[in-house]
């Protein structure tokens, strides 16, 4: 059993999870909504990239410049769609019981999945861009340059997000709303606009992850977001939901756990292992690794 290899692949999978988990956690932190459609936004990002590639296949060429360009287009598309979703499906229900919003989110997820199935057909599509090139050998483990580059992109995006949330004015507004939306309204913060922006950023990150997954695995289908949405939620819970650095930590922990669990138990048990861990974690420490205990006020 090559442990270093397991660590590397765990970190790689973890960086995917982290990008999706961040959006989950951001939205939850701000409006306490579990956006079930978040995994499907990841899928949408992959399909947006796919569309751009099929339309402009010749002009773009291959390689990383093309990938980054596609990623930006896909991020804008999914981000915009995330905003639209919030406007149409979630905003009208902001004062409704939590159950209604959850059901709407399930409906949105369903509509997205089967909307794509209607538009692109239910069979998997082959991603027309592949990134296969050299491998880097570290001791007795190996990692491809493509994997390294994707991890680098993920890290850049995470650092950018962290900077936005911690340093900028709108990041401050986001943090304020997560503490007390009513007080923010009274202080003159445009709550709707900030929530919209949060959805944009969270969805764009998921879209970026979708393009990366498409390019890396080479195949996309309309249900690809389902499992990853669950995994990202697990990661967010492990790290402490609502806490952004926690989400990244949780995603890396989950990636490593899966990679080791899959190696020791057999890869067909990987998902069972991950979800079993989620249930265990909720029993033992529902606030997550970095989350603080929140007492709910009435």
């Amino acid at each position: 059993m090559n442990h270093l290899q397991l660590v590397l692949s765990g970190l790689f999978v973890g960086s995917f999870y982290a990008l999706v988990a961040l959006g989950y956690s951001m939205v939850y932190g701000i409006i306490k909504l579990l956006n079930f459609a978040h995994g499907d936004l990841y899928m949408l990002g992959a399909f947006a990239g796919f569309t751009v590639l099929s339309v402009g296949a010749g002009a773009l060429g291959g390689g990383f410049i093309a990938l980054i360009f596609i990623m930006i287009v896909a991020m804008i598309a999914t981000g915009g769609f995330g905003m639209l979703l919030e406007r149409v499906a979630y905003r009208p229900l902001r004062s409704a019981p939590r159950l209604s919003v959850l059901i709407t989110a399930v409906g949105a997820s369903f509509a997205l999945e089967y909307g794509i199935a209607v538009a692109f057909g239910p069979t998997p599509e082959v991603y027309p861009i592949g990134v296969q090139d050299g491998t880097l050998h570290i001791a007795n483990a190996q990692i491809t340059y493509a994997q390294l580059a994707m991890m680098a992109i993920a890290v850049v995006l995470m650092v950018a997000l962290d900077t936005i949330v911690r340093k900028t004015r709108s990041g401050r507004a986001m943090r304020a709303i997560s503490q007390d939306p009513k007080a923010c309204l009274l202080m003159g913060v445009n709550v709707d606009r900030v929530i919209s922006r949060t959805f944009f950023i969270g969805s764009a990150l998921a879209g970026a992850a979708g393009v990366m997954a498409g390019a890396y695995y080479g195949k996309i289908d309309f249900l690809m977001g389902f499992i990853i949405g669950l995994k990202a939620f697990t990661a967010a819970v492990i790290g402490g939901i609502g806490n952004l650095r926690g989400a990244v930590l949780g995603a890396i922990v989950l990636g490593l756990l899966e990679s080791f669990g899959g190696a020791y138990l057999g890869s067909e048990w990987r998902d069972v292992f991950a979800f079993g861990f989620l249930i265990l974690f909720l029993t033992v420490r529902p606030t997550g690794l970095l989350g603080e205990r929140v007492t709910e006020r009435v």
Partner: protein
Amino acid sequence: MNDEPTLRAGEKPSAYVSAVEEHTRMAPAVKEAGTSASSRTAVAELVSKGLASRWLGTGAAVAALALPLVSSSTYVIQIAVDALIFVMLAVGLNIVVGYCGLLDLGYAAFFAIGAYTSGLLSTRFEWPLIATLPVVVIAAIVGGLLIGGPTLRLRSDYLAIVTLGFGEIIRITANNLDFTGGPNGLYGIPDFGDFGLRADIALYWITAVVVIAAVLFSSRLGRGRIGRAWRFVREDEDAAEAMGIHTYRVKFAAYIAGAVFGGIAGVLFAAHQTAISPPSFNFLWSALILMAVVLGGMASTPGVVVGALVISLLPELLRGAENWRYLIFGLLLIVVMVFRPQGLLPARTGEPGRRGHRAQEGAS
């Protein structure tokens, strides 16, 4: 003369108040109806109630039982059994989602537990199918305890996603184990016996009786003491707790009741299909059952039954347009939640606004 002065149309009292009101209002209404016509409100209420529940329910039950006499073609019986099993699932999920307000996205897991438990016992150990029923109930309860135990103490959102994960765990486990037949599943599951009738008609009647009993049971459950407690918890958990309701225990009761319904529906499904395999229990099933409950009207038994019939019979009419159908279902969920959260046939109880309105009309 009107003994419900505290409510006016448009006023929305808290869940606690409305449930107490409902309780005190029911008793005099029943008493007066037989003796005098002094309270037309009560009579009108009683009539509409009777129309809504008793005769409608009986009529539906008789129609369901009489179906094989009207048409006994294999195709009709086949889809009718499917529809009835779906009704049972929807009614079971209604206890969890409709009455208690807990979102369960992995309801198919209990369905799978029921189907696999009875399938395994009857094919591997040659138990008669009816004898597997107690084991199925126990297995469903154990599954409910495993999932409900840790999550029902937390915020309701966690339950939703954990049940989603649980549904996947059960499906993947059934897929991976050799004991459960792996991806091929189990086949050759016996039925309950034919009682001298055509086998599928015998099964239809058994299913119909079980499902009618289940519908009746769940609607009675929703109107009883525990049903009122469930509705409190749904409307305002903190207020319910402050009023002395053990919310954890009450939520647990709802979750376990739903699990048992799902398990028994699974037995019927196994007997009906004679072969079961993991893909029969994917998330799509859970989502479709949820749609039946939400579209029909959460917490309203007639609504949920109609919703389940519509959702399960629609594919027969719209063959070949699967993906379009699911897309429309998804959009419908959003539209219903935004514009008509109470569903198409909303529950009568627990809607004080409307009741107050009708009472005023009757008195004038």
